[in-house]
């Protein structure tokens, strides 16, 4: 390590000066922290204070800065020294704001502050300023998989932004399902009648665009590499394989209509006069090419009455069919009913629904259909009985309370079946049950891989339950667990054309952003812009493969010898690998087993007679730490015996920290991480879950040290727990008193 010069700055503002002995803190920094330069300032975050620090960096050769002031979440812009290693000792929100301003509390409060100064000095010394991942690639080309409306939109929008695109479509033509529609639901005022799909226009734009390279009848044979430097092999019908250098990928592989043959009770597959929505579109296109009259498939007679059955094989709680709602079907059936009514108002069109779902301006479209004479009946269809050239639709009329209602002599019955995502291989499906057998999965998963990722963790983007592709849905819907690979359109959520186009445009931006940042060696969301990246000392590695297995983002492959192969541009900097590594050879410049370990060791542990227990808190920096901060802002008191260290994610917690702490004589350790599971709230998706799995094994360690299991506590924490956390801390502190002091004190 190059010669470093550490300086500690202790702020006396915001009451720190009154509540704490700042000079004592300076001495601590010099004596225990062993920093050559330690100063106080009355108001460190203002221009003058910041200037002082900048000056020391410029003229005194200070490389490492330790700031003893407020929380790292406050005054972040003021204390922004990108060229230097910076540590923040949280004396305000973390100490004086959570302690009473009383004489008896003064001593323990001061001890707390002194420990945080020790910790800050120790941490900053173990750091170096991040330099950014050197191992980058500079491809500015997007790969778009799927030539439907979503894929075409992504390609066109990316090209408009100035990026080149490789567009791969497995069929022989562009357009996907939208290309098989007669018309689409309107997207502009007035929302009254079906509109042109616009597919032809998009397709011609693609063909005319020199920035877009189009492969038809082609699939992805192999995807290697990482953002900025993907190498993608494209297999074409001819058998030839083409290789493309790709910066980022958008998967827009769309959906397949749910197979109506699985709905025999609704006449699916039993009669030519029972069709799904795609089938009706085909009839409409055929009619348009002739006299405009939609005819009965069985005998070509004009359709005089048609019944639309909503939610066919959808919203099914039994697990037999699709559990979800495909969102577009109500509007689609309304549109299709208009095909008939606009051509001939005398055709009877009935839509049988249980909840009519036409959000936003769909309500206008619904009203327009009623004006045109489409009949809407709230009911659930029990059976469709085809006989000869017509069918009888038996249903339970929920408004008239008639369980045996029926519509006889329907020339045509249209089943509104749902969207099944073309999301490739479910890499999380238990190996025992291969995808196609799938032990009757709710959604039939296409067993063929889409991306054929040459990743340690499998060939496709992970799935959510219901088979849609991964998405950190709600706040960050575009984030998948495969960096630089974004999914768009109905492959990730049932959606209609306008939503798919919006989604496609956003996905194009994310892909562009990913390749730009990859080139600069920066992290992508959620630590966007982070220049630190994992470094591994292979000489120490035991090829245990834990890092390659656990990485939530599939960033780590294995070489032939089974050593981890880091793809830094795929890495999201969560540190899960670091937490997983039993031999501790993985670290980041500013976050490592040492930066945290050193802090743990720096804490001054009073002997067992002092009756001053010490509790280590490892807190998720996104939820638990802010919650503790806000507890401070609300002046909610908690025990002076805790020493809190923020961690990037519970997943980055290496068990050595816990054993070190216990060996050092801490009386207890609290782990504070986010909710895991399907409803996870971890911004690294799996991080907190993996952390907990590791933690569950800590008991054995405790036994070997023959310590009580109470000494380690795992807490599921939300950012709103500003009142709950102090309670839990105080409760735990009390419990530990009952358990008694750690036997390791004073060793």
């Amino acid at each position, binding site marked *: 390590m190059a010669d470093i010069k550490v300086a500690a700055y202790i702020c006396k*503002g*915001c*009451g720190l000066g009154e509540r704490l002995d700042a000079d004592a803190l300076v001495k601590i920094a010099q004596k225990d922290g062993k920093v050559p330069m330690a100063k106080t300032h009355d*108001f460190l*975050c203002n221009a003058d204070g910041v200037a002082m620090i900048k000056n020391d960096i410029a003229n005194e050769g200070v490389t490492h800065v330790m700031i003893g002031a407020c929380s790292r*979440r*406050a005054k*972040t*812009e003021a204390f922004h020294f990108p060229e230097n290693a910076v540590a923040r000792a949280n004396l305000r929100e973390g100490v004086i704001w959570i302690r009473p301003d009383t004489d008896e509390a003064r001593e323990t409060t001061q001890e707390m502050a002194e420990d945080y100064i020790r910790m800050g000095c120790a941490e900053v010394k173990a750091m170096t300023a991040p330099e950014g991942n050197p191992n980058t690639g500079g491809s500015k080309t997007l790969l778009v998989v799927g030539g439907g409306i979503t894929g075409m939109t992504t390609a066109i929008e990316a090209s*408009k*932004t*100035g990026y080149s695109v490789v567009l791969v479509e497995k069929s022989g033509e562009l357009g996907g399902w939208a290309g098989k529609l007669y018309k689409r639901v309107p997207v*502009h*005022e007035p929302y009254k009648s079906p509109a042109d799909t616009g597919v032809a226009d998009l397709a011609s734009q693609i063909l005319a665009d020199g920035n877009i390279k189009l492969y038809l009848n082609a699939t992805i044979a192999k995807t290697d590499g990482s953002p900025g430097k993907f190498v993608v092999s494209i297999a074409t019908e001819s058998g030839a394989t083409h290789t493309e250098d790709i910066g980022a990928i958008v998967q827009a592989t769309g959906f397949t209509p749910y197979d109506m043959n699985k709905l025999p009770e609704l006449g699916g597959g039993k009669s030519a006069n029972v069709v799904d929505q795609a089938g009706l579109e085909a009839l409409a296109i055929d009619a348009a090419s002739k006299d405009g009259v939609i005819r009965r498939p069985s005998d070509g007679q004009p359709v005089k009455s048609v019944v639309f059955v909503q939610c066919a094989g959808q*919203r099914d*709680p039994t697990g037999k069919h699709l*559990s*979800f*709602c*495909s969102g577009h079907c109500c509007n689609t059936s309304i549109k299709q009913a208009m095909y008939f009514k606009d051509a001939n108002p005398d055709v009877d069109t009935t839509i049988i629904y249980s909840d*009519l*779902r036409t*959000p*936003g*301006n*769909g*309500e*206008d479209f619904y009203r327009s259909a009623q004006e045109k004479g489409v009949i809407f009946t709230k009911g659930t269809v029990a059976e469709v009985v085809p006989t000869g050239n017509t069918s009888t639709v038996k249903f339970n009329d*929920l408004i008239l*309370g008639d369980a045996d209602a029926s519509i006889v002599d329907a020339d045509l019955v249209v089943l509104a079946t749902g969207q099944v995502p073309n999301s490739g291989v479910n890499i999380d499906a238990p190996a025992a049950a291969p995808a196609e057998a799938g032990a009757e999965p709710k959604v039939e998963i296409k067993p063929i891989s889409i991306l054929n990722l040459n990743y340690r963790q499998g060939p496709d983007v992970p799935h959510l339950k219901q088979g*849609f592709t991964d998405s950190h849905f*709600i*706040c*960050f*819907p*575009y984030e998948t667990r495969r960096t630089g690979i974004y999914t768009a359109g109905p492959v990730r959520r049932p959606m209609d054309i306008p939503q798919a186009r*919006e*989604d496609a*445009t*956003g996905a194009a*931006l994310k892909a*562009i*952003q990913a390749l*730009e*940042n990859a080139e600069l060696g920066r992290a992508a969301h*959620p630590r*966007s*812009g982070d220049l630190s990246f994992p470094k591994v000392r292979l000489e120490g590695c035991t090829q245990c493969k834990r890092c390659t297995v656990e990485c939530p983002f599939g960033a780590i492959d294995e070489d032939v010898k089974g050593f981890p192969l880091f793809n830094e541009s795929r890495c999201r900097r969560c540190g899960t690998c670091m937490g997983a590594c039993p031999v501790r050879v993985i670290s980041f410049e500013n976050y490592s087993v040492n930066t945290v370990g050193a802090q743990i060791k720096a804490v001054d542990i009073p002997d067992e007679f002092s009756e001053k227990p010490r509790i280590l808190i490892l807190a998720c920096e*996104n*939820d638990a730490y*802010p919650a503790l901060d*806000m507890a401070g*802002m*609300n002046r909610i008191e908690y025990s002076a015996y805790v020493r809190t260290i923020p961690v990037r994610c519970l997943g980055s917690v290496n068990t050595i920290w816990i054993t070190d702490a216990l060996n050092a004589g801490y009386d207890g350790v609290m782990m504070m991480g986010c909710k895991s599971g399907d*409803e996870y*709230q971890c911004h690294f998706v799996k991080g907190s879950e993996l952390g907990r799995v590791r933690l569950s094994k800590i008991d054995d360690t405790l036994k070997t040290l023959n310590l009580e299991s109470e000494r380690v506590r795992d807490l599921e924490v*939300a*950012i*709103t727990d*500003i009142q709950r956390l102090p309670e839990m801390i105080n409760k735990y502190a009390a419990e530990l008193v009952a358990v008694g002091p750690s036997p390791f004190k004073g060793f």
Partner: protein
Amino acid sequence: MTEHVATNETILVVGGGISGMTAALEAAETGKNVVLVEKNPALGGRTSQLYRYFPKLCHPTCGLEINLRRLKGNPRVRVLTLAEVSGIEGSTGNYTVSVKVKPRYVNENCTACGECERAVETMVDDPFNYNLGQHKAAFLPNAMAYPQRFVLDPSIIGTPDADKAKAACKYGAIDLDMKEETIEVKAGAVIWATGWQPYDAAKIQPYGYGRYKNVITSVEFERLSDIHGPTGGKILRPSDGKEAKNVAFIQCAGSRDENHLRHCSRICCMASLKQTHYVREKFPDGGKSTIYYIDIRAIDRFEDFYQKVQADPTVTFIKSKVAKVTEDENGNPVCHGVDTEGYKRYTTAHDLVVLAVGMEPSVKGINIPGHIASDSSGFIEADPANGAVFGAGCATNALDVNRAVQSATAAALRAIQVVNKVAKAEA
């Protein structure tokens, strides 16, 4: 966040809610300079006033924390709070935008230590809590407020309270001479992300909002449930502070109604389904929810959220648009109507009635400078006539958070396309 000079390669984002922040950050993280204009003193918008999100029941402040960290670490975004756009001149690739900035009376010296708050005595209504509660006239807008800087309520300027605040501040952060100013910002493209406002429930006369204390709106219910809210997260009804264990949710309060909002607001069904969880969470035993609805619109993957709530014995669903709400002698709101499934008449008293109020675009009524195409409900429609002014989030449609973020990300790309062209032309 820092200062940078705005040029016609800059993207101006109007509105600092989830959509505006997303658009600004996505653009900035793609290397573009952004000016983010927010009319309130802090970022976060409507979602930061929610207790939980559907369907995960996680907390909006969790995502907000991430976005704020992205923002603090990104020098490309310049944030203007208490600021509103008052005019847009120019055309695609070359706009000059006038921004009116209201005085905060607190400068960047503020450390959020809170001394001014302690010094001041005047209490004012707290808009963050939809005025269900009050706070000091020197205040931090909310616990997650960014910028993390206090604000003085204009009402105390020129009163002794203001001087007390000034005296209490050791850091010269309080500047009572601040005046409203209008600044000009250059921009190549504008993203309009001004979001939505809850429909004025008082206009829905039969439901007696404003006449009956225990008839409240869904957004107010979020505040009642939130630990940062006026009741510290206890569901207490306004009239007498009694625990509201038997809660009625009335859907389509304003939405799908030609007398009010013609459109369906999309989120209200899910919001009420979500809020039944609050009732159960706060009252593990004795909590009871009733949802009066026309159609339950739990669209796409949200369906299983609906199915879970349906399976909950404490929740009752009644397919009926409530005809009117009255009040009984105990101050309980009483719902009158007919269950259209089987024609059952009901007259049911509840502890509290929550109106699932619809989304009205905030652009409605506001005259966006220049011509902007909008639909019959006042939502911005994508239209070439709009030039390089792009709508995002709930300014364009009734959207949930997930969709609003998609919309905002798409808007960011459209804006980037414009400024990239400008850059090319200038290079």
